[in-house]
């Protein structure tokens, strides 16, 4: 990060990176712990993804979440990692809002099965998205690091 940032802002950004990274690692871990069809059923319940893509997504997304969480915490190539995290969160949040507006009574699938989409889950994921966008915005504002 560049020197334009005050100390409190720098620490806030570090804290947000660690929180977002930890959430991604945990979210990926709980899905990896269970058999992949369980997460696939969660994805399929949204009725947004064609069935042929459900299995590849269910098999790869949890590992991608863990990798992305680690990457964000480690802090290198922050513009790319924070943008990817924000993109993931945009997709997750949009899917949840769509399901809620469509009146679907389904589980969020964010941290394994058994958590219905509710105001609370929307607030939580919306807050994570806001944090992701905040980190991304500052990553792009900061001058590029030169080797």
């Amino acid at each position, binding site marked *: 990060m560049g020197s334009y940032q005050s100390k409190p802002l720098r620490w806030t950004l570090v804290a947000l990176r660690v929180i977002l990274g930890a959430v991604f690692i945990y979210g990926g871990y709980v899905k990896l712990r*269970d*058999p*992949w*069809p*369980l997460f*696939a*059923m*969660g994805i*399929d*319940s949204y009725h947004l993804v064609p*069935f042929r893509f*459900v*299995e590849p997504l269910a098999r790869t997304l949890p590992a991608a979440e863990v990798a992305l969480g680690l990457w964000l915490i480690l802090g290198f190539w922050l513009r790319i990692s924070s943008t990817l995290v924000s993109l993931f969160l945009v997709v997750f949040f949009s899917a949840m809002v769509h399901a809620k507006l469509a009146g679907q*009574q*389904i*589980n969020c*699938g964010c941290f394994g*099965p*058994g958590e*219905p989409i509710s105001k609370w889950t929307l607030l939580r994921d919306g807050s994570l998205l806001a944090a992701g966008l905040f980190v991304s915005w500052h990553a792009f504002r900061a001058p590029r690091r030169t080797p």
Partner: protein
Amino acid sequence: MKLYAAALMVVLPCLAATPDVDKNRAIGFPTAPVKLEIFSDFTCPHCRVLHETVLPQLKSDYVVNGKVYIVDRAFPLTGAGHEHSREAFEYAVAAARIGKYQQVADALYAQQATWAIGGNVWAAVASALPSPADQKKVQALAKDPGVLAEIEAEYQEAIAIGLNQTPTLVLTVGGKHYNLPPAPDYRLLKSMIDGFLPK
């Protein structure tokens, strides 16, 4: 002695938390490696779809060959549209006592659109029981405290494990429970079950 008491303290709550299986509401062999509990409600349209489309496939693919043991569990919903849920379960569980559960469950789901709105649950139940003697027995058993207690115990069990919608499938393998999302696609359910079975 202390160790024995401590072991009992650990084991007893687990035993209490494991509900008895009403064998007349289960299909397959209890020794099957995979147990699938279906928490459903007779007034729920998704439960009807599961009962009429997924269950027959499960039976032919996994139950007849002893790989999956399916147990029906009562999770009577409350609120608008579900006013007759509990009454339907009272008759169904009563029918189970005389070995006619599957017939009554089939009739309740097939005629769901009629009785769930009109409220004449008994007409659907009676259509599955041609014998007047059986009808009389089921009507009497539907008021039996044991039947009512069984429904309530299963409902409370569902609440205790955090269920909030139907149909919810709970898959148990080697003591580990997996709460599946409601009404899963059969191909995914098959992949999940196959993953637990020896190749």
